[in-house]
């Protein structure tokens, strides 16, 4: 019996995307999908998992929605929705096929959902939260951790965003060509957050959540096909591919986490690296640098190094300087400090860390883990242990916790 939660993660976004098109309402679609999963949780343990779980969920959710609308069709609009459901046999909306050249993409409910979630009428934080919720199938606590904000804040953002889209009759379609560039940036940011959520899952016993990352890469590919002349879309795809290339080396055979410096680089996926490098070079030729392209260039520098010691840290620090100038945020500053620690030694790295505004990083696990590592290299045993304790306290990922506990043990007893 496969884990129902895993199936939910994998299928919820796809099912919800289709159900929104069929039902014409986000809330109804979410409720219907949740109801279908509840039925699955009852039936599958005894009757077995159907061969196409996603298809089963989508069909069940649709049928349940029709039943419910019939029962509750006291309100005219709901009644109309029920009638529409019977007419619409889940075929793509024909009017969307008029968009020449985008037919393949428009046929993709998930892309439609990305553009809905990232509608410019929503604030950026609401766009990302909604994308992760509806498309990524994440729940509110997971999204809160990805954002570094309290859960009620995220819950309220999602509720308000859905209500605004509904009250405003936001269309469920891919924007017209003329509007696409403006709407792209928020979409890229949302897809990247989905990727990072898949790269290091905030919960669950496996360090990575492969399907979510694959989903993000797939959406990244679709976007670069849709907008081949948009360097940031290409940059995002390159960044995801170059990060993904390291996945086989990120976990040891026993499932434990391996740091970049300790990874067996022969296990990196050369095909993904080659593809990523090609994309980064194409971006450089266009010479319109943006945050995703620079992050891809940083990943490309790592991929170029045959060993950790051979890494060109001066180039990485220079790229982080450029990135920080464009996006002065605490997480980029943290990564820059780590790179400085590699280039000029642990003391210089700690100086760079200590100059940051820690109020934003206080609850951010990677900050404490990075600090612990620098402190260990600087030979400050007690401070190292305290920093690992804080990092362990903050991680919700069991694999990550085991790694941090091992690091803490080594720091406490170096023999």
């Amino acid at each position: 019996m496969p884990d129902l939660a895993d199936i939910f993660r994998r299928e919820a976004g796809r099912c919800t995307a289709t159900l929104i098109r069929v039902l014409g309402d986000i809330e109804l679609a979410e409720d219907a999908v949740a109801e279908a999963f509840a039925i699955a949780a009852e039936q599958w343990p005894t009757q077995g998992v159907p061969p196409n779980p996603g298809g089963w969920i989508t069909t069940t959710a649709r049928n349940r929605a029709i039943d419910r609308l019939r029962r509750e069709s006291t309100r005219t609009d709901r009644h109309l929705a029920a009638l529409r459901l019977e007419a619409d046999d889940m075929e793509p909306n024909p009017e969307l096929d008029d968009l020449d050249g985008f037919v393949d993409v428009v046929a993709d409910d998930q892309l439609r959902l990305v553009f809905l979630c990232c509608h410019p009428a929503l604030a950026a934080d609401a766009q990302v939260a909604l994308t992760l919720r509806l498309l990524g199938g994440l729940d509110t606590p997971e999204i809160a951790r990805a954002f570094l904000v309290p859960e009620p804040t995220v819950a309220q953002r999602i509720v308000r965003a859905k209500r605004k889209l509904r009250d405003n009759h936001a269309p469920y379609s891919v924007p017209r060509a003329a509007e696409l560039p403006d709407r792209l940036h928020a979409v890229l940011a949302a897809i990247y957050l989905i990727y990072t959520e898949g790269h290091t899952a905030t919960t669950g016993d496996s360090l990575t959540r492969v399907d979510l990352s694959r989903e993000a890469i797939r959406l990244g590919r679709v976007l670069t096909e849709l907008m081949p002349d948009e360097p940031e879309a290409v940059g995002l795809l390159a960044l995801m591919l170059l990060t993904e290339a390291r996945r086989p080396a990120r976990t040891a055979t026993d499932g434990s986490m391996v740091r970049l410096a300790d990874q067996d680089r022969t296990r990196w996926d050369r095909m993904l690296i080659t593809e990523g490098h090609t994309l980064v070079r194409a971006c450089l030729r266009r010479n319109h640098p943006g945050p995703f392209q620079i992050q891809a260039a940083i990943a490309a520098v790592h991929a170029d190094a045959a060993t950790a010691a051979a890494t060109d840290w001066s180039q990485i620090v220079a790229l982080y300087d450029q990135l920080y100038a464009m996006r002065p945020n605490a997480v980029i500053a943290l990564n820059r400090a780590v790179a400085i620690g590699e280039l000029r030694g642990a003391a210089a790295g700690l100086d760079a860390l200590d100059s940051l505004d820690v109020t934003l990083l206080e609850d951010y696990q990677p900050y404490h883990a990075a600090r612990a590592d620098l402190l260990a290299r600087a030979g400050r045993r007690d401070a190292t242990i305290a920093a690992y304790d804080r990092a362990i306290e903050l991680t919700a990922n069991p694999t990550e916790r085991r790694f941090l506990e091992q690091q803490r043990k080594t720091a406490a007893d170096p023999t």
Partner: protein
Amino acid sequence: MPRYLLSVWFDEHYDEPDLDAPDVQRQMARTAELTAEMERAGAWVFVAGLRSPSSATVVRAAGGDVSMTDGPYAETKEQMGGLWVIEAADLDAALDWAAKASTACERPIEVRPTG
């Protein structure tokens, strides 16, 4: 078809506009052109320019008593100066009209769906 209120906002204090000022003449001409375009497209429902906020009166009925106070409801710098009500297929279509409206009257436009 969904209806939207497109309200025109003034973010500086304004009184009765100087109708002879070139800026005002240009804005009024463009606004009239846009309204005509909305009518041709079947989107137009209502349009009005508002007199100054100082011409407003606020009426409150409470417990059988009705009180009246002089001036706009909110004593803020930002005041609504005019409005369109339009019909549009969806939010994106309404936002397209709002972009044209903002260009025409050279002011920010707030887009709000009706119930």
